[in-house]
Each structure stands twice: as structure tokens, then as C-alpha cells.
């Protein structure tokens, strides 16, 4: 029997209000160890798609399932717990907590899960090392550059080894070097930990690094192609 995909989107129609445009996405799925680049022009619905996949929005019609369980069948508390446990989210604006230093920001999901953060010190050290920011552990977000903040946000999404990674334009506003480092971190989690990744990006030069591309345009998604060179 084939294992359920990490994320499954089936016959989804979604829009903002009765007068607004409605997206129609017939079938999309993300498997373990798969990396997907989600591309499309601004306003085409990439972020909405990501939020539907993360269970942050409920589609007007159709099904979105996470690891075999439709988000809509879960109570609010269960949905939050599932997202916290199995999803690693990277937001467009980093969204680090200003009161916490780098180390504490990265450990945040562990605290929310009720784990003792000190049990993950080795993983924390590895992640910061891999992200190239081991010397920034005690700094507050306000003292970091955009690139550094984005790396911290990535480490935060990865610290608890989530099965699914959803990243919303993680390379926006970053120079080529920082963008490359960020993508490298994400793909490392896919290859080493077997996570599934959906990454929204505008950067055509990075798309070839992913297994597949979801091109969002005209309220449709065209899934397919083998972008990897």
C-alpha cells in the first residue's frame, strides 16, 4: 500500500468573498523527500495556496489533507498541534520575536511543544553552524541583517525536524549569496531528513534546484515538469 502524501490538495476552489476571483486547484500533492518550487506572478495566489496547505485557511470547496488527515476534520486545538509538530513554516517577513535572542527564537517551537530546549542544544548548534550564524546566538533580531534574520527564521522552522516545510519567498530581498545559503539549508532538510518542501519563489535561477514546479497563474496551478537540471 502506497503511503499517504504529506500534503494533498484535491478539487479545491477558494476565493475572497463572492465577488472576488476564485482559484481552482484540481489536484496537487507533496511526497516525503520531494521539493517543490511554487512560482507565479504577484497576486496569483501563491501565499493563499501555502496557507491552505498549512491549514491556516479553509477552502470554500474541496479537500486539503495533511499526512492523510483532512485539516477540516480536525478541531482547532488538534489542527494547531499538528501544525506545530509536523510543519516548519518560513514566513515572508521572517516574523522573529523581538524580545528573544537568536537562540531563543530558534528554540521557540520546542518550547511551544513542551520540550526541554536544552535537550536540543546539539541540534541547535548544528543548525546555527550550517546557517553560518553560530556567533550570533545571543543577538536580538534588531541587531541582525535581513539575511541573518532569514537564516534564523529557517533554523526556527527546522529545529524540531518537521515532516513538511512550507517557505513563503524565503529568498526575497536577499542577495545571491544569502539566497543560495537559504535554499541550501532547506534542501538539506529534504535530502537528509526526508522532509517535503514547498517553497514559493520568484527567483528563476533557483528553480532548477527543486524536484518539481507548481506554476500558479490565471487562478490555476500547473503542476509538472522536471525542473531539476
Amino acid at each position, binding site marked *: 500500500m502506497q503511503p499517504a502524501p504529506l500534503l494533498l490538495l484535491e478539487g479545491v476552489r477558494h476565493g475572497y468573498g463572492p465577488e472576488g476571483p476564485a482559484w481552482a486547484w484540481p489536484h496537487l500533492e507533496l511526497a516525503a523527500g520531494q521539493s517543490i518550487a511554487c512560482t507565479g506572478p504577484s497576486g496569483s495566489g501563491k501565499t493563499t495556496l501555502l496557507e491552505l496547505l498549512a491549514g491556516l485557511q479553509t477552502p470554500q470547496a474541496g479537500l486539503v489533507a495533511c499526512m492523510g488527515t483532512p485539516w477540516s476534520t480536525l478541531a482547532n486545538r488538534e489542527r*494547531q498541534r499538528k501544525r506545530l509538530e509536523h510543519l516548519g513554516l518560513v514566513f515572508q517577513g521572517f516574523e522573529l520575536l523581538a524580545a528573544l535572542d537568536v537562540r531563543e527564537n530558534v528554540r521557540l517551537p520546542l518550547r*511551544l511543544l513542551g520540550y526541554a530546549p536544552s535537550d536540543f542544544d546539539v541540534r541547535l548548534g548544528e543548525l546555527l553552524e550550517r546557517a553560518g550564524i553560530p556567533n550570533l546566538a545571543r543577538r536580538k533580531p534588531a541587531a541582525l541583517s535581513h539575511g541573518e534574520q532569514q537564516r534564523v527564521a529557517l533554523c526556527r522552522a527546522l529545529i524540531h525536524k518537521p515532516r513538511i516545510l512550507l517557505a513563503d519567498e524565503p529568498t526575497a530581498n536577499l542577495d545571491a549569496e544569502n539566497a543560495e545559503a537559504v535554499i541550501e539549508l532547506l534542501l538539506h532538510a529534504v535530502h537528509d531528513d526526508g522532509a517535503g518542501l514547498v517553497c514559493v519563489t520568484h527567483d528563476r535561477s533557483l528553480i532548477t534546484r527543486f524536484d518539481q514546479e507548481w506554476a500558479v497563474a490565471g487562478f490555476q496551478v500547473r503542476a509538472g515538469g522536471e525542473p531539476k537540471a
Partner: protein
Amino acid sequence: MKALRFLAFKQLVHHPARNVLVMGCLALVVFLPLLGGGLLRRYDHDLHQRANATPLVLGKPGNRFDLCLGALFFRQTHLAPLTMGDLEPWSARQDLVAVPISLGATVQGQPLVGTTPEYFERRGLGFAQGRLPLKPGEIVLGARVAKSLGAELGARLRSDPPMGFGLVGNATQVLVVTGILQTTHGPDDRAVFGALQTCWLLDGWLHGHADAQSIAQDHPEQVLAKAENGVLLSGALVPDQDVAQVATERLHLHADPASLPISAILLWPASDKVLTIVQADTNAQGLLSALRPTQVVDDLLALTLRIKSLIDRLIWLLGLGMALLFLVVCVLSAQLRAGELRTLARMGARPGFATGLLATEAALLGLGAIAVAALAAALALRLLPDLVHVL
């Protein structure tokens, strides 16, 4: 819960100045009623303890609160004076003990209480050092006075000059410390005790003449003329009056001893029956006022409690205003941090986590304010002088 407490603490520490200010404002609202209540409880305790130990006070009719606070706590008030003549019939009685009190003079800012040895016996005052003041010019210090002045046995303390600028004003006197009392945690700790004659001496009723020959030797420039049996000294000479240097037999009055003033008489009747009869008879005659300190203290406290309840209501209003302001601060803080709180929800924090976080921050601020207020109130109660002493 750990995550909530951790994040709340971090948030509070992230804005120390703002949160210390908010905590200070909250603490002030808690501190005021705590301090007021504490002071009033202490006031109540001190007044009742002293009043219960003093069955009856006699004085000239007038303000009963002044008479009671003056006779029991040596508060500096202008009591209409009694005379030694008023004391005589009470001293002659076998069914009570009458102790005169003379107030008015001060030594180094502390009240000088003129009285008789019976006072020390009735109050159960023990001596840490020394003995009773037996002669005019000898004094005994209460424990706190001795400590604050750093005075020891044999110390010579100058009395304070009397108020006003009367031409016949009396010079100050050098008084000798013959004893230091044990601590009583009452008003006796804050007083200086002497014989009645010492008070009369300071008031100018009693005096002695220094030896003119010795003054002439020490201050030859003040000698106007010499005669066979004496010297004529300049009127400008105002030598220090050191009563300890004057032989007691040289001290004398130029008045009827029965007319010498005292401030009040403390009575210890042998029984409740005697007390009731003495009070009723005395008040019926109307020449003197006989007060039961416990009743006066109850009336005084009832008045004080009425004032306190009014102040408490004002503090409640102030607290309500502060609570509303605090609410506004919390709401504004939540608005400013809406992005962060949304992030926590999107990451998967349980429902209500953001509200819980804000509530925990508010609770930590509130608890901190209560702790600061309690500490400050305890410190203030320790450092502030007794209300009885101040009011």
C-alpha cells in the same frame, strides 16, 4: 505554562523602563492602603496598650484628646495647668495612687517629663543603667533617647531654651544623666524623666544663686565693685546655670508650694469601684476632668477610622482609574505586538496562547507591583516614626 511564563518574562525584560514605570504606578496604588492600614493598626495597638495601662487621668477641663495624649504620650500640647494643691487630696488617699506629670520643657528636642518615683514603679520601668533622678537637675533617659543622643551615664545635657522671647526668659540648664531606662517599645522610650523640681527649675519657679565670689574670680571683667562682704557684678553677666554645681539646699522658691504647676495627674485606683466613684465625683464637681483613657482612645480611633474609610474610598477610585489605565496599556501593547502574536498562532501555538501570554504579562506586572508595595510598606512601617508621636 512554562512557555507562557518564559515568553511573558522575556517580553517584560525587553522593555524594562516602560514596565518598571507601569509596575511603579500599580505598586503605588497598592502601597497607599497597605501603609495606611499598617499605620492605623500600629496606632490602634499603641494607643490601646498605653490606655489600658492607665486607668484614670485628671486634668483641667478642656480638650480631652489633648489631655489624654499629653499625659500618656507626652505630646507637646498646651494643657491648662493644675497645681500641687490639686494633687494633695489625691495623694492623701489610701485607695489609689496619684502620680503627677509635668510637661512642657524639652531636652535636646525630647520631652522632659517631671514626675515622682511612683511613676517608674507604676509603669514597671526598669533601669538598664543607673538610678532614679533624686535631685533637681538629674535626669533619666528613655532607651531611644539615650541611643539617639548617644548619651551615657554622667552625660551632661543642656535643656532647650523656652519658646518665645520674653525678657524674663529663663536660661537653659545643664542636666546630668543619672539613669537610662530599659526599652519598653512605648512612649517612655522617647522621653526624658526628671523630678518635678527640675521642671519648676526650668520654668523659673525654683532657682539657686551661684557663688558671686567664684564668678568674680572666673570673670573679673564683670566685677563692678568690691565690698567687704561681697562683690557687685555687672548685670550683663549671664553665666551658665549649672544646677548640678549648685548645692540643693540653695535652691528655693519665691512662691507658695501649693501653687506650683503640674500638667496632669495619673490615678491608679485600688479597684474598679473606686475608679467609677472617683470619675463620677470629679466630673460632677466640674473643677477637674477625670478621663478614662480607654474611652478617649476609642473615640479618637472611631474618628480616625471614619477619616480612613473616606481616604480608602478615594484610594479605591484612584485604583479604579489606574486599573483602567493599565487596561489601556495592555490593549495598546497587544495592538503593537499583533504581528508577533499572530506568528505564534500560525506556528501552531494552542488556541488562546496569545491571550494567555498577555494575561501572564499582566499578572507578572501585578504580582511584581504587589510585592514591591508590600516590601515598601513593610520598610516604611519600620522606618516611619509612631503616628502617636507625630500626630
